[in-house]
């Protein structure tokens, strides 16, 4: 260990950007019925965690980061999202 290795500690620096999986927080998870989905993007805007993305073929959910709050299912205007176990 040299001083260079210690600089993060000595000067209290954080240089890495990242996060941890949150799937263990979840009780239910959202499921999208692509037939009903109008691709309005409302769920993407309202997703608390920001783990939904608009892809070419509809909305994609990153289940590793979804905490299962259910906001997307509650807000979907066509009820295309439901919370499943």
């Amino acid at each position, binding site marked *: *260990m040299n001083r260079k*290795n*210690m600089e*993060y*500690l000595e000067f*209290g*620096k*954080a*240089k*890495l*950007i*990242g*996060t*941890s*999986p*949150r799937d263990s*927080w979840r009780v239910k998870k959202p499921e999208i019925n692509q037939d009903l989905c109008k691709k309005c993007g409302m769920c993407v*805007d*309202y*997703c*608390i*965690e*920001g*783990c939904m993305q608009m892809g070419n073929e509809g909305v994609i959910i*990153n289940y*590793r*980061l979804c*905490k*299962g*709050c*259910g*906001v997307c*299912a*509650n*807000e979907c205007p066509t009820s295309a999202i439901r*919370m499943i176990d």
Partner: protein
Amino acid sequence: METRVISGNEAIAQGVRLSRVEVIPIYPITPQTTIAEYLASLVANGELEAEVILIDGEHSAMSACYGAELIGARAFTATCSHGLAYMHEPIAQVTAYRLPILMAVTNRRLGSLHSSQPDYTDTMPEKDSGWMQFYLESNQEALDMVIQAYRIAEDNRVILPTMICIDGFYLSYSNEPVEIPNQKDVDEFLPSYKAEHIIMDPNVRFETPLLTIPAELIPTYERLYCDAMERAKKVIVEVDKEFEAKFGRSYGGLIEQYRCENAEAVIITMGSMTTAARRAIDKLRKDSKKIGLIKVRSFRPFPTEEIIKIAESVDSIGVVDRAVSRGVGGGGGPLFVDVKAAIYNINDRPVILNFITGLFGKDLRIEDFENIANKTLKAAKDGKAEVIVDFMEDLDLVRKYCPPPNPTICMPEAVFCSGLSGCVGCGLTLSLRHTLEVLGKNTVMAVPSSCAAAIIAGAPFTSPIGVPHVIANMPSPGGVISGMRRGLRIKKRSEVNVIGFCGDGATVDIGFTSLSGAAERGESVIWLCYDNEAYMNTGIQQSGSTPIGAWTTTSPVGSIVRGKKTGRKNIPLIMALHGVPYIATASLAYIKDFRRKLKKASETTLKGKGMAYIHVQTPCPPGWRFPSEKTIEISRLAVLTGAWPLYEIEDGNLKINTMPRSLKPIYEYLKLQGRFRHLKKDEINMIQNIVNKNWKELLRLEQTYPKKMVYSSE
């Protein structure tokens, strides 16, 4: 007398109830908060007749304490860490007026490195302030000491302010069986308060605090103060004995000796760690090792004579410190420094060692104390110590983290990483995500202590957001962002956004002065207030932004109190009167509107026109008591019922952004939230009337504009 299993904080609250404290100004800070909660609920249910002041900051809390004591009322407050540091100025004032105030401190580390874990770095800077300091080991001792402390502090030989310190988390939130004495016995032990110090009562006699004395008299003044501290030692022992006679529990006065008979070495501890140390001593005594334990209860006044007496009979002393005196040659904790000073004048001094450990809440186990005791015994045998100040480092862990490993999910380009540690359905997380997405990478951010600060303090060495940010002090986010903007200006970096991402506490209550100051100076910074309408990070305590009637843990629903009694501050309009160029309210249900406002705020500040203030409502599922999927629904209803009108004020012109054809009844908004569940029909009608009145006023203001209604500062 009854025995109940309660936490250290509840034990202190029960002690306060039994001591018939009259005025309790209190401001929440982890891990002290539940003291405030228990006291608020005791008052709400009529079990304690006292004035609880849910005050706007610790500085005011201590000021209110001495205000009340100067009138002759028995006062109590509790705080820790940064709150204690913020109190530093009125703490000094209290000693000048010689007021027997009692403050409970739930020890927590002072300084940044977002920690709410216990060590003594918060109370140690106050050790020379002239307050008595007691460090306690158990919840029972905490309750008993509240009662004893008033007896000691109010004794006419003493009359000194007192701090009783319990280890945050280890005691504050841990449950233990505690015997709660009868009110009658306590009343006999602690008579009702007749103040012996200065009382400001114009009807009785003229008496007012001394405001100045000639410099020549200061040495005598200081000597008199130290004499009172010396006299306190005797009183502490006396009161402990009297307490034992009445309640059957003794703590030994200034220090407690544990198995010190014919000891060759002793270790000295303070606070909750002592329990583990006792077990280690038991084990070693079983192996017939001659070691004892000293618990220092009263750190101020310092038990010099008692320490000398022990030092004369042992060969080595190991002092365990939960704090560091930085810059004292080679380190060394405050307790070590004081013990060393105490024994300097004796002949045949023992070897003295210092163990710095338990910092940042590190758990101290029985094995740790066995290790400490063995090292102390070895020094006794050798007649010298290899290492005098032992930091007890864990080099394996240092190797693990230096250089730090990558986070589980690495996103080097992200401005906001999904998966922050906020609660499920957290409105603030959503507002933070859109804020960072709109402002982009070219941003520096200050976040005062709040939920936001807690959730962006990710894993060690890793940040879950991709813009440089700092946890600002709660009373001064305005100062931090002003400094950043001025620094950027002098470095000719005008393209960088500066934002203060503040909670409602830091905007409305404790940090309001710094907001007002930054607005008045015309600092080109964005101030975003995410308003979850209470102190959510510390656990749902009432703030200046909590709406009328709402339940919080410090405005509980009981037989006397029914939720918050008063309304909220209207900060956007207060900022309008400051002449701020851009002000907006926003809602999470109207994301496009929110993002447009953020963009406008960024443009306003980058042009150097002055402050941009955005006030966004962020519903909080655990605090407002609703299921997590309703976050957006509730935001929308707040707008549609008129509880949270969306408007912006640009250069003095007010414009309402969302104009419902007719407002929905407020009941629709209230019924979804558990915090309003207790409201009766007439109370709901009252809230409806307030909303109607505010809405009418807003419409009037919109019509008055574009004629500028805002008072210009000229």
